[in-house]
């Protein structure tokens, strides 16, 4: 899913980065993030966008289009806010496309271990993208943020599957809450 860059490729990039390294004064967190982004090798179902311009990298958006699993066919927009303490502090990630998912609540908060207690400064934006991809491939009902979704997933998996694919493709109401079709925009 994620092709890790080769060492040689990376060394070339490092050399290039070092060559034009003395441009604008950047914070340590920004420098590290810049490396993450230059090394980012996104699969074709994931895209990145810098809404504030390419020089304002601390806030960006990732769109994920799951190519397998229950959420296939949908497009989900995530906002990343990278703190100046990065990589010691993890980025704050939200799913702003409203989604019926046991590990994502209606405000777009995401329950993913590496965004919280299991974050380590050797992780990177790639690791988070991988984690998000995995989350949409394998929702986990054991530790839910959306308890109703988790309960349905456990008790009537067939119904859960039906409801998810319908909400993703066309939009539908689930338990009185409307989930618009997942087109990768802000609906949460």
């Amino acid at each position: 899913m994620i092709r890790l860059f080769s060492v040689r490729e990376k060394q070339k990039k490092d050399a290039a980065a070092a060559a034009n390294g003395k441009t604008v004064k950047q914070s340590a967190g920004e420098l590290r993030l810049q490396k993450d982004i230059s090394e980012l090798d996104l699969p074709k179902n994931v895209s990145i966008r810098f809404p504030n311009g390419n020089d304002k990298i601390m806030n960006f958006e990732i769109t994920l289009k799951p190519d397998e699993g229950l959420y296939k066919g949908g497009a989900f927009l995530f906002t990343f806010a990278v703190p100046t303490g990065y990589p010691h502090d993890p980025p704050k990630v939200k799913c702003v496309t409203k989604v019926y998912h046991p590990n994502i609540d209606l405000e777009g908060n995401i329950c993913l271990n590496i965004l919280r207690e299991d974050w380590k400064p050797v992780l990177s934006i790639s690791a988070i993208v991988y984690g998000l991809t995995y989350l949409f491939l394998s929702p986990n009902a054991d530790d839910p943020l959306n308890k109703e979704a988790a309960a349905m997933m456990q008790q009537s998996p067939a119904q859960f599957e039906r409801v998810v694919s319908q909400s993703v493709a066309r939009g539908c109401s689930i338990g009185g809450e409307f989930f618009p079709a997942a087109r990768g925009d802000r609906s949460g």
Partner: protein
Amino acid sequence: MTFEVRIKKWHAVASWTWNAGDDVCGICRMPFDGCPPDGKYPGDDSPVVWGICTHAFHLQCINRWLQSQTEQKCPFCRRQWEFKQAVVGGEDESEDGAGT
């Protein structure tokens, strides 16, 4: 709040990439013979340190991480972090200026 992600498996691949003769600090991703983003000069100002697990970081980088944690663990392998003498570390590269 734990979500089971197969990140361990991925992590093994990632650490292999970063350690395969790559003289870059895993935290700041700056070369070991350069300096971390908060250091002014390479060399004495930015020593490279090893843990007993053989993972290496800039002193500033690992210190900052350890200070933010209640448990002192290596950010790569999660083993207990204990400083190891740089000269007997697992890396065979000499770090320019770090030991002078």
